């Protein structure tokens, strides 16, 4: 700590140099500590504790109580809230649909994103405008995209009026009003909006594949498919892992698109964990119960987030 004071004074650095002329290595070490004092951390830690750690700790505790969100008193009820999840049909539906949605979005968004990236990267002249157009939906608020598609999919909406021109009348469906179709419509809208993001990540991965390897494959007489599966795809593995974890987490937490398109309906057929959390807390007033569902969501999503962090970390080190 003495060094802190010394360095704060104008001639501090020089003064310490005179004191320990032989221990340059250690001196450097000390100076680094001084340049980055511990209190630089405080503002970030304060905001982080107030908005993330504190509330999350309170949350985990209150999941084991019967807190209604308003009264000062609450009692410890053990695992009651968690058992209630098992007997709550809309939570069970939300759980199942969240998994379906997360997996479906992950698979489709990756496949579509990869195909788009390969197309854009294939030497087409329009690759620049294509990249911009395909990525643009990803920067818009999901709520807005959801409303655009809500209209397109509405009865007598744009899709039905286009289908009326090219297909038999039986193709015009009540897309969002059907318990069988609504969830898949939501999946399709998310994929439509976010494939561009996966595409951009894949494009960055494709840039990293050296031309020599691909030319060597050419010389060995490999066809386009062989080249893709034996060279391109294995080398894209890091990009695949990144977009897979990203979309899985996003899918598990999905709220905006669902809430704007269907609010969980019809008949709970598009409820996700996030929408039932929101409804239980703010429509029904079951605070501790909704937080218990949030704990379940955390348990599902955290390992994948951890994997994503590890992947990002490893890439940095390489």
């Amino acid at each position, binding site marked *: 700590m003495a060094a802190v004071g010394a*360095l*704060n004074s*104008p*001639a501090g*650095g*020089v003064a310490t140099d005179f004191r320990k002329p032989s221990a340059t290595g250690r001196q450097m070490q000390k100076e680094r500590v001084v*340049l*980055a004092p511990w209190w*630089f951390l405080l*503002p*970030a*830690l304060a*905001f*982080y504790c*107030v*908005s*993330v750690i*504190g*509330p*999350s700790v*309170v*949350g*985990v505790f209150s999941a084991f109580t019967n807190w209604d969100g308003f009264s000062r008193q609450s009692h410890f009820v053990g695992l009651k809230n968690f058992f209630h999840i098992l007997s709550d049909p809309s939570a069970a539906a939300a759980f199942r649909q969240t998994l379906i949605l997360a997996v479906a979005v992950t698979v489709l968004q990756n496949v579509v994103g990869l195909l788009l990236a390969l197309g854009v990267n294939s030497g*087409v*002249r329009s690759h620049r405008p*294509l990249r911009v*157009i395909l*990525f*643009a939906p*990803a*920067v818009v*608020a*999901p*709520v*807005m995209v959801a409303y*655009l598609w809500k*209209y397109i999919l509405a009865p007598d*909406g*744009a899709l039905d*009026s*286009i289908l009326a021109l090219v297909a038999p009348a039986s193709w015009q469906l009540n897309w969002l009003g059907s318990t069988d179709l609504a969830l898949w419509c939501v999946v399709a809208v998310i994929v*439509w909006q976010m494939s561009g993001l996966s595409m951009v*990540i894949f494009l*960055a991965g494709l840039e990293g594949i050296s031309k020599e390897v691909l030319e060597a494959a050419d010389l060995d007489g490999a066809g386009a498919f062989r080249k893709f599966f034996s060279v391109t795809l294995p080398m894209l593995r890091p990009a695949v892992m*990144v977009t897979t974890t990203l979309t899985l987490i996003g899918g598990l937490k999905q709220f*905006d698109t669902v809430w*704007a398109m269907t609010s969980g309906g019809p008949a709970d057929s598009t409820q996700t964990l*996030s929408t039932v*959390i*929101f409804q239980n807390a703010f429509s029904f007033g079951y*605070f501790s119960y*909704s*937080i218990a569902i949030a*704990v379940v*969501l*955390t348990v599902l999503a*955290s390992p994948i987030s951890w994997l994503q*962090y590890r992947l*990002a970390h490893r*890439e940095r080190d390489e």
Partner: protein
Amino acid sequence: MKRYTWRIGVIEIVMLAVSLVFIVPVYVLVNLSIRRLGDPLSPLVPTLHATWENYARAWTEGRLGWALINSAMVTGASVVLLIGISSLAAYVLARVASGWSRLAYIFLIVGLLIPIQLGFIPLYRMFLSLHLLSLWALVIFYAGLQVPFSVFLYAAFIRALPRDYEEAAALDGCGPLRAFWSVVFPLLSPVTASIAIINVIVIWNDFMTPLLYLSGGRQQTVPVAVFGFVGQYTSQWSVVFAALVIGMAPVLALFFALQGRVMKGFTAGVKG
């Protein structure tokens, strides 16, 4: 550069067809937003007699002017705050190798694993009981929420940065804050740009938090204002679409102005 073969020509045609899947919905959006209410034409037929009335109604009845100001304020304040606190914290975490620094880093990174749904309701209660539920609550919330991600990106960048400049600054007798601000921070500008872009888009587009934390009226951000507005006008899609165009315009304008930068920012952001 590859030769332009007939195969690439076929791919080009296919890709342009695919891009229609992205262009047509946006065309329908703009096309209907300038159409008079009750016009029965197909959404694909160009609107010849355009009207601005839908925009006028969306603007005044949806209070979109206020919403845009609020969103800009919340986003701007959050991102500036976030960049300040995260770069400072990341600098310590990247430069100090001792135990407490590592512990603090792990403590912050844990935040990447916690979904906001967990703390979201207790935090709402806290702001409510402190009578802080306002745009400022959002700024505090976003600044804290995005710290782990921003610190992570900053720390990774700073670790790869040579220390020579900072040490020279220290020898010149700068205080730590001054040395950081005038020597280190300018060197971080590439990663600052990525962090700023991602956070601007994430915060501007956020829906769940302001839906809950803001009471309505003038206190709304753009996504929430549009949400409330659509609830009232579901049968009048032309007016709704005008609101959507207004709501989408700022972020799309930002994207088109900075295209490559934004896409690079996102790639850097997800890869760490």
